[in-house]
């Protein structure tokens, strides 16, 4: 049974924690902004978007914790092994995975424009069950999130092709980068392709930089309008 969640090259370990902090800040600010707009408008799309980014932000905080306290040093790599840890640590790993999957499930659900908790639960519960009972945890997590990211990407491509507005392009590229990073993450733990962890992290960084840039542009635009 493959019970490792990810591999981090040792020299990249500190950078990875710094990146985790950066991702937490970026996603946290986007979530706060979405909730602020939800307060003005009362539109559920903004609330769901905020929830999705809050889940992402918390999942990154948990990932920093996992990287700091739970990774094992084996042959110049930091490895997160689910089988090596106690029950409490296993619960933290499980919480991380649930938050990570929930963030993309919520974002995919938002883009579907359907109302109903049952649809949401039908997307979320099978994903969690699949992770819980899978033999290859790492592959399952990244496969599930990749599928949801693919659905989200389809939404952004469709929106962009409708108007060709440049302001829609950043989010499309960000989601495409997150999808590519996710696919590479699958290979990292499964085939020991640990260099992929660095490539994926750079992809994630570029994606969140694009999202942060989009938010900066929005706030500047908002200031001008006021």
């Amino acid at each position: 049974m493959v019970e490792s969640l990810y591999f981090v090259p040792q020299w990249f370990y500190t950078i990875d924690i710094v990146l985790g902090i950066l991702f937490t800040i970026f996603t946290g600010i986007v979530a706060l902004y979405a909730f602020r707009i939800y307060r003005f408008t009362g539109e559920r799309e903004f609330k769901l978007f905020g929830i999705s980014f809050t889940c992402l932000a918390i999942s990154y905080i948990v990932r920093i914790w996992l990287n700091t306290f739970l990774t094992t040093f084996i042959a110049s790599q930091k490895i997160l092994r689910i089988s090596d840890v106690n029950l409490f640590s296993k619960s933290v790993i499980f919480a991380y995975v649930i938050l990570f999957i929930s963030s993309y499930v919520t974002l995919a659900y938002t883009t579907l424009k359907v109302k109903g908790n049952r649809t949401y639960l039908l997307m979320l519960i099978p994903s969690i069950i699949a992770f819980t009972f899978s033999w290859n945890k790492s592959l399952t997590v990244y496969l599930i999130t990749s599928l949801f990211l693919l659905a989200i990407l389809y939404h952004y491509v469709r929106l962009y092709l409708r108007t060709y507005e440049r302001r829609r392009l950043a989010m499309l590229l960000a989601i495409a980068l997150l999808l590519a990073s996710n696919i590479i993450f699958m290979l990292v733990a499964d085939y020991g392709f640990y260099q992929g962890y660095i490539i994926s992290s750079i992809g994630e960084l570029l994606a969140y930089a694009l999202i942060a840039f989009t938010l900066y542009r929005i706030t500047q635009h908002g200031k001008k309008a006021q």
Partner: protein
Amino acid sequence: MPLSHSLFIVLHSMEKKRNKLQVIRDILEVIRGRNGKIKPTHILYKSNLSYQMMEEYLDELQEKGFIKEIKQDRGRTYTITDKGHTYLERYKLIEEFATSFGLE
């Protein structure tokens, strides 16, 4: 509200379907343009919506606290609230966020 703005709403809706945020802005601007007090028939005429859609939007806007209904002997009128004014002031920001993040 000036005629040019009503014309803009009609032409804009002909060009492409308005999204919900735009419809809410249009209704609130119609109410604000009438010194903050307007009858539903005027809203219907100026906002370019069907009667049923307009009623649904008015109910929702009341629930969200953007407008207030005033019942009188000669029918009902609507006024815009402070929250409604805030929505209009921040509309550009809201619209930019919704479009950029694909939430409209």
